[in-house]
């Protein structure tokens, strides 16, 4: 008998995280916490120049230091078969030649790993690492986007786009055109990148790593070492923040694997904070120009958006800087141009709302500027140019509740109380400003596989290789499974974060719920079907011969709709003489998705205060209204919006990776000097979840939520700062220095 307290969980319930207790009690194990028998510690030595070659490396002292087991450099590193293979760009997520660790004497960027020192303790490895002496042959480097715009290239995978007439904004009755700059931003998760690697045999590798995609880790290791799938395992159930920075295989994984190969023991490598700034990805800086023209009534006539990002010399990292512009508003004429400036830097990497975040800062700032040029309310301007289908491709929206976001957000925020004149609102010495912006982000779905098992105690186990880097995916999937199976949360278990489990795409691009959630939904539906088929065909079963439409699954049992007859899952298995019952199912969106444009939407409303004397900016209030489809869990969804807002505050007001271009080297690469918001910077955040089903993308009706609230958010702050002060800051971050100068 189910206890009354074991409540039936439904999709949408604000369920606590299933792994929450493990995390807050310290029992959740992270990549650097696998104290395997015989584990050793690797510390990476990194380059102190941005370009050139290693002339010589003196490792004698380090090798002789106490406890040192190996010093690995390009001179003695084990061969990596994959490094010799010809570059195959087809299907590669990033175009070009991936970075090859300890491959040769070439230096491609500052902080490039050039040696790994392995010792029996971390302290000894650290000390020995400082004893490696390197001589370089330096070459002239370039790390400044602004000074190298003339070197920009059209990426091999172009992002350019146009519709209608080119540069139509130029001849519009009202127009604005401005340049917008965004700096390098670094993901800076609390947990720095870490890996513990083990060679179980000559041809078998296990890594305990920090990844958003155990299957991608597995496949990239297979490719590098020419190993079979069953011989490579990536295990990563707990991730201390990633935000895109753990979406590919990085030097710490390769170093740990190579180290373990050399010393014949497990090797653990943890990056130091300064190393994460220029080794494991970052959000590239941008230089953008946006021109928008409109009729005197505020109907958009033309938008021109040019954007420059940066990449390394060895890969072309492209991002979707132009995406919001292409689809956000109804506008007949539009041309978007995207270029890359190759520099002597490590390759950038996807960073929460990759491209869209930088692109929407420019677009949504420019829309605000246009509203003032038109003498029109910024919200009215956006509503007037609402697109009732995707203007990029003329496809109907899979669902679009942006108007609801505008309406509910404005109401909750009290937008109508805003005096439209800049510098008109004040509270003591603080100037008060209100700003808003819209956001749009792709809502897609990828192939995923899940396994569901009915166990002898009547509980359900569902498995997927998917990562849960913090958004609450494991909780949501437990919840979906419980909802479909009619089981309590206690009797529903979800296993994740290991490449040996059924295939899942990486946890990025806000498509985990739609992809893996669908697989969980589908596999549980298939399991029910199988239970039902077996139950109604079983001789002597109380359900024998029952109609499918007549069977209900609830309280971990099967029941006839109109009768009192009920069979618990465990009794069912007993009747069937089965120890358990298992179903595996692959799910994907199918062709329907191609007939629609799937997007999530948001409208952000922000109130800021700017101190009239010191130029300090404080965000006072935020209302974030989000259309992310049907909400799977109101608690974790709300937390996702909180997280995005905190990110937005950081990007708008403080985050900036500073490089001294004379040395091509980051200078503020620690958390004391690279500022992210602290609690005191985060105001009341009101989250409005529209919570309406998307009928196309997946069977639950969900769209993605991890990134959408961040898109446009930084512009909402910049717009509010303009409203407060009359100063338009087009160069992030908005600091006291810029406001008082």
């Amino acid at each position, binding site marked *: 008998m189910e206890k009354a307290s074991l409540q039936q969980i439904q999709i949408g319930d604000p369920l606590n995280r299933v792994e929450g207790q493990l995390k807050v009690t310290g029992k959740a194990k992270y990549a650097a916490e696998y104290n395997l028998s015989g584990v050793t510690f690797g510390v990476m030595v990194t380059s102190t120049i941005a370009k050139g070659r290693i002339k010589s490396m003196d490792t004698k002292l380090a090798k002789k230091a106490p406890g040192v087991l190996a010093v690995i450099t390009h001179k003695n590193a084990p061969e990596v078969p994959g490094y010799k293979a010809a570059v195959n760009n087809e299907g590669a997520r990033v175009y070009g030649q991936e970075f090859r660790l300890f491959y040769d004497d070439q230096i491609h960027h500052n902080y490039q790993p050039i040696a790994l020192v392995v010792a029996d303790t971390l302290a*000894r490895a650290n000390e020995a690492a400082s004893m490696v002496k390197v001589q370089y042959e330096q070459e002239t480097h370039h790390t400044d986007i602004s000074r190298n715009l003339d070197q920009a290239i059209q990426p091999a995978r172009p992002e350019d786009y146009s519709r209608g007439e080119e540069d139509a904004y130029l001849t519009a009755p009202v127009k604005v055109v401005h340049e917008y700059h965004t700096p390098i931003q670094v993901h800076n998760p609390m947990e720095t990148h870490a890996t513990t690697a083990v060679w179980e045999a000559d041809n078998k590798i296990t890594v305990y790593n920090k990844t958003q995609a155990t299957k991608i880790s597995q496949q990239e290791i297979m490719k590098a070492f020419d190993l079979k799938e069953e011989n490579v395992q990536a295990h990563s159930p707990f991730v201390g923040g990633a935000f895109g920075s753990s979406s590919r295989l990085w030097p710490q994984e390769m170093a740990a694997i190579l180290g373990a190969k050399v010393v014949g023991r497990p090797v653990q490598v943890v990056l130091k904070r300064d190393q994460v700034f220029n080794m494991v990805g970052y959000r590239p800086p941008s230089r953008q120009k946006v021109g928008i023209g409109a009729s005197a009534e505020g109907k958009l006539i033309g938008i021109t958006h040019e954007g420059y990002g940066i990449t390394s010399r060895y890969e072309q990292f492209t991002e979707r800087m132009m995406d919001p512009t292409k689809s956000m508003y109804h506008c007949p004429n539009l041309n978007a141009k995207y270029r890359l400036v190759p520099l002597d830097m490590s390759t950038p990497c996807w960073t929460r709302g990759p491209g869209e975040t930088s692109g929407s800062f420019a677009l949504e700032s420019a829309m605000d500027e246009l509203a003032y040029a038109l003498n029109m309310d910024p919200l009215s301007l956006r509503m007037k140019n609402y697109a009732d289908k995707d203007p990029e491709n003329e496809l109907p929206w899979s669902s679009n509740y942006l108007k609801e976001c505008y309406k509910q957000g404005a109401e909750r925020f009290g937008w109508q109380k805003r005096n439209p004149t800049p510098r008109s609102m004040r509270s003591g010495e603080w100037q008060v400003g209100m700003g808003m912006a819209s956001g749009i982000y792709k809502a897609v779905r990828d192939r995923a596989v899940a396994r569901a098992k009915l166990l002898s105690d009547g509980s359900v186990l569902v498995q997927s290789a998917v990562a849960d880097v913090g958004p609450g995916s494991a909780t949501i999937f437990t919840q979906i499974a419980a909802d479909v199976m009619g089981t309590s949360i206690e009797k529903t278990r979800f296993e994740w974060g290991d490449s040996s489990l059924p295939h899942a795409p990486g946890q990025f691009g806000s498509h985990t719920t739609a992809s893996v959630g669908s697989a969980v939904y589908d596999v549980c539906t298939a399991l029910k079907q199988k239970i039902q088929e077996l139950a109604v065909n079983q001789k002597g079963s109380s359900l024998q011969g029952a109609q499918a439409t007549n069977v209900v699954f609830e309280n971990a049992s099967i029941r006839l709709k109109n009768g009192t007859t009920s069979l618990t899952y465990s009794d069912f298995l007993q009747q069937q003489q089965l120890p358990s019952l298992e179903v595996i199912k692959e799910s994907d969106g199918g062709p329907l998705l191609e007939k629609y444009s799937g997007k999530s939407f948001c409208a952000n409303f922000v109130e800021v205060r700017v101190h009239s004397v*010191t130029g300090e900016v404080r965000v006072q209030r935020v209302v974030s209204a989000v259309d992310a489809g049907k909400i799977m869990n109101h608690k974790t969804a709300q937390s996702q919006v909180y997280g995005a807002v905190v990110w937005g505050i950081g990007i708008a007001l403080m985050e900036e990776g500073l490089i001294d271009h004379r040395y091509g080297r980051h200078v503020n690469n620690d958390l004391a000097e690279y500022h992210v918001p602290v609690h005191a910077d985060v105001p009341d955040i009101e989250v409005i979840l529209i919570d309406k089903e998307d009928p196309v993308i997946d069977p639950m009706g969900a769209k993605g939520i991890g990134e959408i609230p961040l898109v446009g958010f930084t512009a909402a702050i910049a717009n509010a700062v303009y409203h407060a002060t009359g100063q338009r800051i087009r160069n992030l971050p908005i600091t006291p220095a810029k406001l008082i100068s």
Partner: protein
Amino acid sequence: MKNFQYVRPTQQQAALETLAQDDKAMFIAGGTNLIDLMKRNVVLPEKLVDINRLPLRKIEPTSKGVRIGALASNSEVAEHPLIREKFPLLSQALISGASAQLRNMATVGGNMMQRTRCYYFYDAALPCNKRQPGSGCGALQGINSKHAIFGFSDKCIAVHPSDMCVALVALEATVLVTGPKGERQVPFKDFHRLPGEHPERDTNLEKNELILAVDIPASSFTQNVHYLKVRERASYAFALVSVAAALDLDKGTIRNARLAMGGVAHKPWRLMEAEKALVGKPVSEETFQQTAALAMQGAKAFEHNAYKLKLAPNAITQALKTAAGLS
């Protein structure tokens, strides 16, 4: 990080002797700055002499004011009833610094000994005369947005990062130190140095000396005081500019004043000329603006810190207004 020996004496004499025995030994108290510097190979002691067991934690009234033991934590001092009542400027300055966790660990003596946050000092791969004399000043032609506008030299343009010290210099504290030559008193304004030709030396503490306590004389600066810290985020950030302002008012007239700044020089920057100019003046925005203008005489900016030439006087005016109750 270099491996090191670690000793934890319980007697002051033993601590001093242990330090003197080894040229590369250093004292450690809260360690909130030293450990960071060791991790980044900026400071490489071979021996750490942990002084936390020495009896230097007391905060007690004296005939002249208060004596604060060098090992009293920043939190203890900030929250002490005597400090809050008689030296509120110090309490405010301490609370504006770091985070609660750091203030719990950090000591008064350690706070005085903390090193600059200059980017170039922190990266052993870049030039820095303070870290490696003769290697050059990376900041001079580099990223100098947080750097000095007063008292710098062509060898070093770094600023002292402490908030506490700005209040202590304004309150005319004295530092009690001991060493091979016995005990001595150092006026707080002379404790820290300007860089000159020797930026590697932050303070006038002699070799093998130990800070025992800080004495603050009782004063009339108990009501009209304000510590203003301007920073890019609301907490846990070093000051772009900070101001310690203290006024002794006789109705609408200023009887006496103290003024010091942080984030502008290699040491806590006492503004004695400005203080003098305030005496006898009426409390008004105009008075404070004139004071700020006077205080800024001789300021000079580098490529990225010109904003401080505007922010600093604004902050002085604002701090004085708040101290006077005008804001």
